């Protein structure tokens, strides 16, 4: 079942002589529960693509349909509501709120939706992320790996339709990086959580069901590595 489809996405920065095409007519779709890795050299447009998919950046032209909804046709506030319910974003630099502790950062999208805190789910996520002894710490009191786990917890808390991770291990050492990928894969497998992940690391990219290669804003290769959740083809 198709969960995401993008059609003819273009994104340009600047004008005339300084015009840079970050995305050049990109189209693809993703099935529900699929784990897709996007790889490519710096400046190939992969982060731009991910941000447009996540609704935090706007395409110059083209459409992004998530669960059939054209997200860029939504008004600002509607799009924000859509993001907190359907999209989980994970950034390279974690982007946690400095005034909130671990629990509060994780539960924030849920509270933004006006819902009371789901204590059971919070305990489960905090446990899964290995943050049980850090629940009352502020982000500044955590290591990079711990901050990224909080960021993942926040992205997963609302059971989003799709999780988008922008180089989640780019700022971490190998051990912490491996743990983060393990957590994401675990969530993808156990929850059938659709996951799109950007990485520079080929070994991580190869753990996905499908790998999309990008260069100069275009998809140069879209390769299925394994059947969804299965073995390498």
């Amino acid at each position, binding site marked *: 079942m198709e969960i995401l489809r993008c059609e003819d996405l273009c994104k340009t920065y600047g004008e005339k002589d300084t015009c840079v095409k970050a995305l050049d007519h990109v189209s693809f779709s993703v099935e529900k529960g699929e784990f897709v890795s996007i790889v490519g050299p710096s400046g190939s447009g992969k982060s731009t693509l991910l941000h447009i998919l996540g609704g935090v950046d706007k395409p110059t032209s083209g459409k992004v349909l998530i669960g059939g909804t054209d997200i860029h046709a939504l008004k600002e506030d509607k799009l924000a509501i859509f993001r907190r319910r359907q999209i989980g974003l994970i950034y390279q630099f974690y982007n946690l709120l400095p005034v909130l502790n671990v629990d509060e950062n994780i539960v924030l999208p849920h509270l933004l939706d006006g819902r009371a805190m789901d204590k059971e789910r919070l305990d489960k996520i905090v446990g899964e992320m290995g943050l049980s002894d850090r629940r*009352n*710490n*502020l982000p*500044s*009191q955590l290591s990079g790996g711990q901050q990224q786990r909080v960021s993942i917890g926040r992205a997963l808390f609302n059971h989003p339709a799709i999780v988008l991770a922008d180089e989640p291990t780019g700022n971490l050492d190998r051990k912490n990086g491996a743990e983060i990928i393990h957590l994401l894969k675990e969530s993808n497998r156990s929850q059938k959580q659709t996951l799109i992940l950007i990485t520079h690391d080929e070994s991580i990219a190869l753990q996905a069901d499908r790998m999309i290669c990008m260069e100069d804003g275009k998809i140069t290769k879209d390769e299925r590595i394994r059947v969804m959740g299965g073995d390498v083809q």
Partner: protein
Amino acid sequence: MNIKLKSGRLPENANEVVLSDAVMADGASITVGDIIESEYFTRSITGINKNREDTIFPLYNIVLKYGETVEVPQDFPYYEENDSFRENKDYSGKKQKLTVVGIIEAPYYEKIASAAYTAITMLDGNGITAHDKFNLSVKVNMEKYSLASQSAFQDIVGEREIVYNDYVFAFSGKSSDSTINILVIALTVFFVVLIMFVSVFLIYNVFNMSFDERSRYLGMLSSIGATGRQKKSSIYYEAFYLLVFALPAGILSGLGIVKLGMMAIQPFIGEMMSLSQYIEGSSAMLIISWKAIVAIVVVSTITVLISAYFPARKVGKIGSIECIRGNIKKKTKQYKTNKSITKHGSAEKMLAGNTLKRQSKKTRSITAASVTFIVIVIVAAFGSSVIEKVVEKKLDNEDVKPNVEKWDYSFSMADRKENESIRQEIRQAEGIAETAEWYYGAYGATVPKDCYSKEYWEDVHEIYNNYYQELYNRKLSDKEFNEIISDEIHHICFIGLDAKTLKEVAKATGTDIQTLENTDQPAAIVVQEGAVSTDQIGMENIKLKRSRFYDVKQMTDKKIGESLPVELYSEKEDKISSFPIQIAGYAVNKQIDKFISIRSGDLYVFVSADIAKQISKLTQYQDGTSMMVPIIYIKTEGENVEIIDRLQNLSEMGREYLFMKADYTNTLRNAIIGIVHVLLICFVLLTSVICMLNMFNSIRSRVDGKAREFAIMESIGMTKKQMAKMLLYESVGIVIKSILYAGFVAFPLMYMIQYGMIKMFGTVTMEFPWIQMIVAILFTILAVVGLTKYSFKKEKYENIMERIRNENV
């Protein structure tokens, strides 16, 4: 001389003259350059009607009999030929040709009904003989003038009288009254210290803010080898350049603002200080003294250096990595989640609350600006009311003051039948809007000592203590005090009200009107508020260095229904009559200030007009008048009411009459209070603008600084509405915090002011400035919420990712 030249010039010798334009208004055709001949005479009138016993001029206190000749004053009106009297002119024989060199506006002292006009010539020193009498006005150099100058002047003039213009001297703290001088100096110090404190605080705030903003930049500098000293120097250089440009700009704009302010208030200054008849046109000048400029430069430099010192010290101490990472003071404390907020799903409340609790430093500058603003308004209002009270105490020598809004003038006269015709005339005169006829009676009635309260006697004891301290360096024992006061006569003063006013006063004080109107059983309303001071109670001609005032809240401890055993003395019969008066109610000034306010060292009571008449009969003097003096309060329909001039003349001529402007006690008082108010308003406006700019700066940079956080919030699904709501919660939190801090600062400050004033001037009851406090708080709420909303709206929110990335670079 308070004259205004309309054309020509002022006289330069004794043969030149300026004339009032009333001459031309009344039909004469005289122009500048004309020569007029003057003859000198005295005016008198002679009774010519055999059939008329007396020709009475009540307003001039003249009773003219047939054949009698009476000299009349200069402003006695010109009457046409009539059957009652003849006007005589007794020429001195002296004639003089005078050249009209100028025309002046009719001066305020030229009476409308007067038969003469004002002509002013110049008195040149050559013609003066030793027997001539004249007034000499001397203008002193205020910079060199001191109180020591007064004795030097007195040495020059010997026994002749010197009248000092305390209106002018008071504003420089050089008047002949030491209390006023201390007050003016205290006022100056108060405002200068307050403005310096505010400036240091706010400039420090700005430096601190800019330090927070640039911590990463400073860290970079540090990482490439800048020493702590160099970093400190960068702050000092910044402060120096700030001074180089800001100081001249500040001085020029300050002078400009003062000039504009002066121009704006110039037309109202006379009215504001109740001196409109003396102040005309552009009498105030902006004088720039080099001493003042040097003082501004020195004070500003000190202020800026102090403000820069603390951030500079902080900058010098911090390390590079902490700066770059932005965790100069890394928190180690753990923060628990507020269950009640998360339970109810309010993300906005949680974010706002945690920001205020966990990032209090970032809101500190906004809180500081808000606290400063609230404190300034409260303290300035309190300080001004304290000064107002002290000025009032010191300068209001009158026990009884009519409400100047309700009445324009008062006219009192001896209680004689003949004076009924004047009362009648006043009532029926043109231009009179309203009158009220009361009775006043003071110092002819006594009560026992115990009619005065314990509080009253304690305050009087304190007054004596002040004198004893000065004389014998000790306080007066209770025994000594009781001996002193046992010899004293304890007065009671009466105010007999007309029926209408009595009813209103009874209603305002909750007193039974029937009890008051009962003529068989005299009853009264007792005024409970009073005051005693060293100005009223003296001892052995000792002049204390400073006046002391004591407010009395309860003048009598006697209860309603109890009787005051009043004794009335009749000089005519040399007899003391017992006249017990029942207390029907109590009054405080708030209840009666619509008509009158009373703050006296004597017990005052209100009685009905009928009771006043009874008292009048029992307190007659030898000449047929009595202690009870009829007084008419007058409200006119406008200016230039003829009878007012005549009443004034009558008052000047006869000692049985007293005509006064209702606000006559207000002149110097209003002048000083007016200046205090102008200073206060300017001060509060100025500091408010500084605080508002500071607040705006703080809020703007805070909202700017939160751009990344806003972007993160948006990226995880927070709507603009939710952000605005979160900011509103934050603003409310900041305001609540500011109010609490302001309370902690303002209350001790007010206590200190009050304590200082009590130490200096005595027990002066001061009111808490509730209204100003509420206004300041409302204004702070509006400013913080409004400026936050404005700053949030001004933020550009086009691309979430760009904002997140910008901060990462």
